[in-house]
């Protein structure tokens, strides 16, 4: 269900923790699975749980508690915009509104071509670079003014 490369990465996560504490690796393992498959289906969560050797429910409760795990299909690029107070003081809502208008979708929606999903984020811990946006959960984009958004969207093929 996952590539050899992803499984090898999960093995490296498992090696960080005591042999009798494999459960600790579930956060990393689910992240690795999601990175390969874009989002987590129940089947994928169950597969990861069995690989880590924990009950499926233990993996499921992690996948549902932490908000960066996606359990519904998302576009090729998931754009998460921070609108928390420090970003909002530097144009976070302007950024969000610009993206909504440009992509023609609201928060939690995906464009018809399946390319972009827009999400509202909470503080990402990078307020000095406000307004900030995350691409596919892992790539931080700083100072996302409308001009910077145009440039970034053009880069995302």
């Amino acid at each position, binding site marked *: 269900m996952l590539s050899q490369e992803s499984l090898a990465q999960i093995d490296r996560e498992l090696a960080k923790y005591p042999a009798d504490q494999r459960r600790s690796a579930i*956060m990393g393992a689910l992240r690795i699975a999601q990175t390969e498959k874009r989002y987590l289906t129940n089947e994928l969560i169950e597969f990861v749980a069995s690989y880590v050797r924990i009950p499926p429910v233990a993996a499921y409760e992690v996948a549902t*508690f932490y908000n960066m795990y996606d359990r519904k299909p998302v576009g090729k690029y998931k754009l998460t915009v921070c609108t928390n107070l*420090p970003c*909002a003081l530097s144009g976070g809502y*302007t950024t969000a509104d610009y993206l909504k208008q440009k992509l023609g979708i609201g928060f939690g929606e995906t464009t018809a071509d399946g390319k972009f999903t827009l999400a509202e984020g*909470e503080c990402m*811990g990078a307020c*000095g670079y406000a307004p900030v946006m995350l691409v596919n959960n892992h790539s931080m984009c700083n100072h996302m003014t409308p001009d910077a958004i145009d440039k970034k969207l053009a880069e995302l093929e």
Partner: protein
Amino acid sequence: MTIYAKGVVFEGVDFDNPNHWRLEEYVKRGGYAALKKILNEKITQDEVIAEVKTSSLRGRGGAGFPTGLKWSFMPRNFPGQKYLVCNTDEGEPGTFKDLDIIVSNPHALIEGMIIGGYAMGITVGYNYIHGEVFEAYERFEEALEEARKAGFLGDNILGTDFCFQLHAHHGYGAYICGEETALLESLEGKKGQPRFKPPFPASFGLYGKPTTINNTETFASVPYIIREGGQKFLELGKPNNGGTKLFSVSGHVNRPGNYEIPLGTPFADLLEMCGGMRGGKKLKAVIPGGSSAPVLPAEIMMQCTMDYDSIAKAGSMLGSGAVIVMDETVCMVSALERLSYFYHEESCGQCTPCREGTGWLYRIVHRIAHGEGRPEDLELLASIGDNIAGRTICALGDAAVFPVRGMLKHFRSEFEYMIEHKKSQFAALS
């Protein structure tokens, strides 16, 4: 963004050099000298802890607890595994200092943790990193690999019988995991829901074993303290507030960024370092220690010095050192609405007063902000706050209430105006 590095954590870092974060550069600027000094001169565990106590270093994550004292709580002779954990789950709105530490000077943190492990007789550590800064997590993993290859981490460090393993663990989007026992649950691969205390982590921590947890900046300050002496560190700040501290300044200033300055620096000086107010506008209010700290109006803030005691005396808290600056155009109802939404969104759901109460707070502030406030709403907010604060397992409930109380204390008239006139005197957040 600006990084103003005139303190101990970023001492000597040349940000123009793209390799400044690498081990080789860290060693060139005196890195790992503190660890070598301890191992070569056979400095005892008690002496290391005494030096940290002398420095008056206080926890940089928000609580300001004396680090040396915390280290002395660890039962060093406990027969069995003990753990050292670093809290880099930096999610308090306004805070972005630990991000720059693991990106720009990760080895200072690694060295600080190794020294902590030595002082408390701990052989395994984890650094829990905020999920949203995943690239920084990858950077930290790379720095760990460098330290292992150089013999600073692993078995028989620098040819002695001291061993210390250190690993990185990432969160994946849960503010609550910044709370130390929620962080431990998360590190165990569970939902990040805080534990009852006591027992405290020093006796029952990770996997039920004695555990010491410190903030990133706290650990990263330790090499300097050992190298230069606790007294010198103390003298950089002021009594009971030793050292320099990173302040993350965001909002309406010309140069947002991280400013590492002596504790006790006047706020007015910090504002000047940030290039003053953006657009030459007038300062209205400051949240001095992250979103959970009560807001202070300009006239009080301009009299404060940036240290734990001064900010506490003014009725707020220094917290994580996140300074959110707001100018005269900001609608405080709108600002509070956004913060209240955050706490409602991030409540872990374990305790009823917080799970339900944060929703009530948000919905009431939301209706005021949208011209539907009722005359009794301000009393209702106060009453809900009283029924949350102090009635939950962890401090998230308190953290949701403090901003409400601060706003109602200092900017009550704005809320009253909005309830009466159904609109604000100011523009909403944009």
